[in-house]
C-alpha cells in the first residue's frame, strides 16, 4: 500500500497492528450499512450488534464458506434443540445453557469431521469467530420464544445476508485502500446516520407488504 495517511502511520508506529486499525475503522461503515438495511430496505436481523459481530467473525475465518457453514450449523442445532427441549419444560437460562453446550459439541464434531475429510481450513478456524457464532444462539432462542420458529429463522437468514454484505464491503480492497489513505472519510457515516434516523418514508419491504393497499389508493 503506497498511500498511508499520517494518522494511520502514527498508530502503526505506536505498535497498533494495521489490521486492527482497519477493522476498527470499518466498524462505523458496517454498522451504517446495517442501519441502512433496517431503515430503508426493512431487513431487520437480530438488532445491530449481532450482524456486526458476525461480519467480523466472517472476516476472521480463513475462508468465508467455513464461517457460513458454522453459522448455519449453529442455527440448525438451535432449532432442533428447541423441539428436543420442549418436553422438559425448563426455564429460559438453563435451556439456553443446554442449547449452547450441544452447539459447542456439534461444532467440535464438525471441526473433527472437517479434519478427517482433509479440509484443513475448517479445523484451522480460530476460537474467536467460533465463540461469536455460538453466542448468537441466545438471540435466536429469544426470537423463537417471542415471535415463533419461522420468524426467528427469517431473522437468522436476514442476519446472514446482512453479514455477508458487510463482509464483502469490509473486505473490498478499494474501500480498505481508501480508508487507509483518507481515514477522515469515515466521519461521513455520521451525517448518513442522522439522515437515516430522520427518514420517515416507507421501507422497501413495506412497498411489498402494502402492495394491495397501494393498488387501491388513487
Amino acid at each position, binding site marked *: 500500500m503506497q498511500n498511508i495517511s499520517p494518522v494511520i502511520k502514527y498508530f502503526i508506529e505506536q505498535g497498533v497492528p494495521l489490521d486492527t486499525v482497519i477493522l476498527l475503522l470499518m466498524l462505523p461503515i458496517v454498522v451504517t450499512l446495517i442501519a441502512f438495511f433496517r*431503515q430503508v430496505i*426493512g431487513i431487520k436481523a437480530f438488532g445491530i450488534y449481532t450482524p456486526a459481530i458476525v461480519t467480523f467473525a466472517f472476516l476472521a475465518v480463513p475462508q468465508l464458506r467455513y464461517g457460513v457453514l458454522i453459522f448455519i450449523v449453529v442455527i440448525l442445532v438451535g432449532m432442533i434443540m428447541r423441539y428436543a427441549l420442549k418436553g422438559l*419444560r425448563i*426455564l*429460559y*437460562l438453563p435451556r439456553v445453557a443446554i442449547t449452547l453446550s450441544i452447539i459447542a459439541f456439534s461444532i467440535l464434531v464438525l471441526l473433527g469431521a472437517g479434519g478427517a475429510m482433509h479440509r484443513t481450513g475448517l479445523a484451522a478456524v480460530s476460537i474467536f469467530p467460533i465463540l461469536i457464532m455460538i453466542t448468537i444462539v441466545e438471540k435466536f432462542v*429469544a426470537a423463537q*420464544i*417471542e*415471535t415463533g420458529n419461522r420468524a426467528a429463522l427469517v431473522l437468522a437468514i436476514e442476519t446472514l445476508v446482512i453479514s455477508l454484505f458487510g463482509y464483502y464491503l469490509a473486505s473490498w480492497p478499494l474501500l480498505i485502500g481508501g480508508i487507509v489513505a483518507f481515514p477522515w472519510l469515515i466521519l461521513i457515516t455520521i451525517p448518513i446516520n442522522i439522515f437515516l434516523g*430522520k*427518514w*420517515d*418514508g*416507507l*421501507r422497501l419491504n*413495506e*412497498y411489498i*407488504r*402494502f402492495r*394491495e*393497499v*397501494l393498488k*387501491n*389508493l388513487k
Partner: protein
Amino acid sequence: MLEIFKNGSKLLGMNARNLDYIRPYNRKRAKRLADDKILSKRMLRKAGIPVPKLLAKIKTVDELENFDWFSLPNTFALKPNRGFGGGGIMVVYGKKKTFKCVSPDGTEIVPDPVWIKSDGSKVTVSDLKSHIRNILDGAFSLANIPDVAFFEERLTLLKLFKPYAYKGIPDIRVIVFNRIPVMAMLRLPTKESGGKANLQQGGIGVGIDLATGVTTTAVLGKGKIIDYVPGTRMLLSGIRIPYWKDILLLAVKAQEISGMGYLGADVAIDRERGPVFLEINARPGLAIQVANLSGLRERLERIKGLKIKTAARGVRVGRDLFGGEIEEELEEISGRKVIGTIEKIKLMGIKGRTVELEAKIDTGAGFTSIDIDLAQQLGFEDTVAEYQKIETTYKDIRHLSKKERWDIYKHIPHLESMVVVNSASGSTYRPTIKITVIMDDVVIPTKVTLINRAHLKYPIIIGKRNLKKFLIDVNK
C-alpha cells in the same frame, strides 16, 4: 412507478410511525402505563370504563408455589403483564372433570384441576406453573425484564361473531389520534392463531367503515387479502358491528385517560356486558391499513393540530371524515331507511308461520302482491283453496255492483277484501289477505294481493303503499 412512491406517502410505515407519531405524542410515562396491563386496567376501571375482571395475579415464585389452583374458574385467560403482540397468552375454555380418590387409610385425595385449551389439549397445574415461571422470568416481556402473571375473566362470545371466530373472542382495534378515531378493524381469531385475535399470531383483520361500523375488506395474517373465513363460506364483508358508536367512544375516552396522543384501543363485545375495553396499545401495528385498503398517514396528517374538546365530538369528526358511506347520515336526516331494489324480508302469516325471502321493490305497483304458493306457505291454504273454486274473471262480473261482487267471495276464510289491480297485462280482480312484512327492521302490518307469480323470479313485490318509510337506492 413514480405513482407508487407518491401513493407511498399516504401510508404509515414503521419509520414514520415511530418517528412522527409514537416518539412525539406518546410520552415515556404514558407508554409505561400502556405496557403495564394490570395498572392500565385499574386506571380505566376507575374512570368508569368497563374492563374484564382481574381474577388473580402472581408476582413472585413464592406466590406461585402457594397459589390456590382451586380458586380459578372453568374458563380464564392467563397473561403476562408486559406482554406484547399477543405473546405468552394462554386461554382455557373448560375444566376437565376430576374425581376424588380415597386411599386405603381413609384420607381423601382431591386431584389438582385440569383445564382444556382451544385445540382440545389438556392444561395441568404443572403446565400453568411452568408457563407462569416463564412469564415471571420475562420470556414474553419487552427486553426480557422480569414480569408479573395475571389471570383474567374470559369474556363470552357474542352470537353474531360465533360463525366467524375460531374459539377465541374477536375484538375491535381502533386507532385513535388527537381524540379522533382514525381507522378500525375487527380482529378474528383463527385456528392458526390459537384463539388469539392478534394478526401477528395469524388472526384475521377485517376493515370497518368508520361511519357505519360495517366491515369492508379482510386480511389474513400480515398481508393476505381474503373474502371468506378460511375453510368456510362465511363472507367477511358486510358484518354490522353492534354498539358501534359506543365502541368508538370507549376508544377515545381510553386515549384521554392514557395520556397518549397516538394509540391502538382494543375493545371486545361481551354477550352480557356489551362493549368491554381490553387494552391500550402504545405501538399499534400497521396491518390495519391492509384490512382497510387505505393509508393511515394521510388520515393522520389531516387531523394533526385539530382542537377537539370532547370525546363525543371526536367520534363525530372521525366518522364524518373517514367514514366511507353517507347512507346512515341520510337515514338520520330523513328519518327513513335506505333500501335497494331487492331486499331480504321476513313475512309473518297466520298459524305462527313465517317465511324469509328476497323481495323485489316495485315503485310502479300500489299494492304489495304475493304469489299463491307463498300465501299457502304463510298458512292461507284454505283461502287459496276456496278462492280457486270460484271460476269467474273480472270481465264476467264487472257489471255487478261492489256489494254484489263481494257477496260472491265473502265466504272465503281470512279474506280481507277484493280489489281491482290495473297492471301492464290488463286489469285483474284480486283477493287480499292481511300479513306482516318486516323489512330492514321496520314492521309493517299490511294488506297484500294474491296472484299467481309462479312464472316470475320473485314471489313477492313490495308496492308503494308499504314503502313510505323507505328511500330506494338503485345502486344498492
